[in-house]
């Protein structure tokens, strides 16, 4: 016969994996751990504006950062000046705009960069943006 402790452990495990983790992910996070099963339509785009050493401002494609990022992350930057649908990349990169700005400084040899990250939770959701301006080291 199952012991009371054994039953309790398994009930707690079931509540965690079947309810608590998916619910917390859905309500408070990106929904990544909520078994969305191919239904996510969240998307993002990245706009990078760099001021060169010559003082000229240019719009740079995020693909330009590809040489400095890991091979498995390149897809997240390639063509990201237009809307990209990649929910994991969107939720992971969104809070890391300052890091993307620092990376842009290193790669673009710029005086300063402005990185804007736009995201949309689904096709009917409003677009939210976060912008970071970074003064690059000389």
């Amino acid at each position, binding site marked *: *016969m*199952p*012991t009371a402790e*054994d*039953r309790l*452990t*398994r009930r707690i*495990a*079931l509540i965690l*994996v*079947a*309810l608590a983790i*998916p619910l917390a992910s*859905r309500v408070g996070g990106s*929904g*990544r*751990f*909520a*078994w*969305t*099963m*191919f*239904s*996510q*339509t969240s998307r993002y785009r990245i706009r990078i504006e760099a001021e060169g050493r010559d003082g000229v401002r240019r719009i740079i494609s995020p693909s330009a950062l590809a040489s*400095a*990022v*890991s*091979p*498995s*992350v390149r897809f*997240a930057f390639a063509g990201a000046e237009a809307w990209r*649908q990649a929910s*994991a*990349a969107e939720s*992971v*990169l969104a809070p*890391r705009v300052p*890091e993307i700005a620092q*990376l842009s400084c290193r790669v673009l040899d710029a005086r300063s960069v402005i990185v804007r990250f736009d995201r949309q939770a*689904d*096709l*009917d959701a409003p677009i939210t943006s976060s912008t970071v301006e970074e003064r690059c080291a000389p």
Partner: protein
Amino acid sequence: VRPDARGLGAARIAFATVFLLRTTVLSGSGTLLGWPEPGWHPVIGPHLPDPIVIALCLLRTGCAILFLVGVRARIAGAMAGICGYLVLAQNPVTYLQSTHLLYQGAILFAFTDAGARFAVRPDRPGASDGLFLARGWLASIYAWAGIAKLRADWLDGRALELLHHDGALRGWLADLVTATATSRAIAACGIAGCELLLGPLLLWKRTRTVGIALAVALHLGIAVAARAEAFSWAMLALLLVYLPTSREDPALWARRSTSASAG
């Protein structure tokens, strides 16, 4: 060993096979999943040195092999899943639901008697087999998948159109389903309805056969149209936990009793 662990044991073997196919060179990637790479990548938590990430990749693979063959399967499964999550945290952009499913499933099997059947060195059975845990978890996955699709942009078919446009849905089945606005909306509502129904169908013994048939059809459809083979195969492997136990299948119970008496 209680006979109820039969489905759990079969599910463990099938699930561990998908785990190894997805996370090792067998996937065709040339390296173990999550092997360190040069260049910037976001990290969740502390940035682990490359040798530690390599050790975790190797440990994950070794534990997955032990989990498959059934040597200390409980601990091996849990370790494989934990190592998997630690490696994933080093490059979370590569997160896929299939990897989350495999890691969480491997950990969850540690709470069941999955390692007590069809194993080289069977685990000692626990006080209960934990079948309700595995079955409940799988049913919840379908429920959450259905809930996630209760959105206007899914139900009217725009999400399917977008997935098809981006190349996430390909092939004859995807072309057929997304051909018109009406077909997209019908398919989208059908998929959401199917997923919402699957949990109750699988959990209720009388409708279980229908539930399994529907789930198999759904996953084969996803495998063909979305090329999400790892996720589909892992879910199909997990469906084995719904194999009837001896208590649920009196004919099987009678055969076992007869053979036990003869023995």
